[in-house]
């Protein structure tokens, strides 16, 4: 298992992911977006940050990068791909995940800890975690997921909602929703299940020193359980 961690201009969480994979003993490499060639890698991470300064819309300019073209190809080939925060925004802008992420309804940048319930096990990052409550940090101003009515019905009925913001009892309440996201959606997967996007930061909760270890449970799935189609 070798993981590519994509680096766009303005990405800020690539070293946190590298640190996390280092702790997990998973081989990894930070890959500059313009040179991105994902052949020879088994999985890809699109980390958080502010690619291209969030100009125009978060993720809008990154979607035109060579790295994103490579992501499209690799996603179609079944490669496990995880986008966190700005990475989730890029995956939505690139059309690899449905809907869009817009300004938090309260207009604030929110830096906090949230709880999520794992709603879909059909991703390499959530396998074996169905129904589990995970506690992870967030840091974003544009994490409110929106889509038209048909898309919302489709993602709900097809099990593409992978993670939902909940309170400590596991209930999706408005108070547990940090950004006004539709139906408390914190993370989505694609239909095939190999692409997962979420607003929280699993790479920032992989050791007790960081205040939590639930991110480890999501990332270690790559080391143990991933099978790449030939």
């Amino acid at each position: 298992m070798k993981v590519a961690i994509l680096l766009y201009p303005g990405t800020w969480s690539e070293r946190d992911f590298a640190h996390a994979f280092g702790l997990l003993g998973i081989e990894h490499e930070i890959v500059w977006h313009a040179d991105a060639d994902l052949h020879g890698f088994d999985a890809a991470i699109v980390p958080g940050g502010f690619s291209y300064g969030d100009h125009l819309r978060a993720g809008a300019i990154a979607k035109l990068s060579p790295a994103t073209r490579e992501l499209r190809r690799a996603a179609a080939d079944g490669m496990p791909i995880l986008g966190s925060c700005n990475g989730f925004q890029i995956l939505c802008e690139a059309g690899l995940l449905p809907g869009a992420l817009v300004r938090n309804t309260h207009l604030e940048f929110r830096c906090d800890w949230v709880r999520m319930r794992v709603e879909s096990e059909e991703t390499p990052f959530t396998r074996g975690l169905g129904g589990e409550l995970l506690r992870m940090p967030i840091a974003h101003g544009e994490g409110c997921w929106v889509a038209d009515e048909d898309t919302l019905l489709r993602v709900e009925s097809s099990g593409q909602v992978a993670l939902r913001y909940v309170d400590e009892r596991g209930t999706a309440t408005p108070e547990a929703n940090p950004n006004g996201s539709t139906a408390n959606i914190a993370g989505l997967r694609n239909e095939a299940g190999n692409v997962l996007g979420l607003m929280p930061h699993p790479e920032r909760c992989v050791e007790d020193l960081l205040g939590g270890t639930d991110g480890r449970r999501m990332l270690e799935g790559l080391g143990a359980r991933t099978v790449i189609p030939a």
Partner: protein
Amino acid sequence: MGEFVATIHVRPKGEVRDPQGEAVAGALRALGFDVTDVRTGKEIVVRFAAADDEGARDAARTMGDQLLANPVIEDYAVELGAPTEAARG
């Protein structure tokens, strides 16, 4: 080839909440205006080369579709100015 100026107006779709607009509406009310609604958007002015009016309009629409607006959440309108120069290299 001529040089054209297209103004692309991007705004959130009607059904998409516009929290920035809501905040501006609140501020305008604080100024004493009887404001019922505010929608905010972006105006993007692009100066570019095209063969003729039709080519320029097509190009501006392609810019809107592929980058300037996200069709999931935004609508856009193109306003095309007259060519600024008759002939360019």
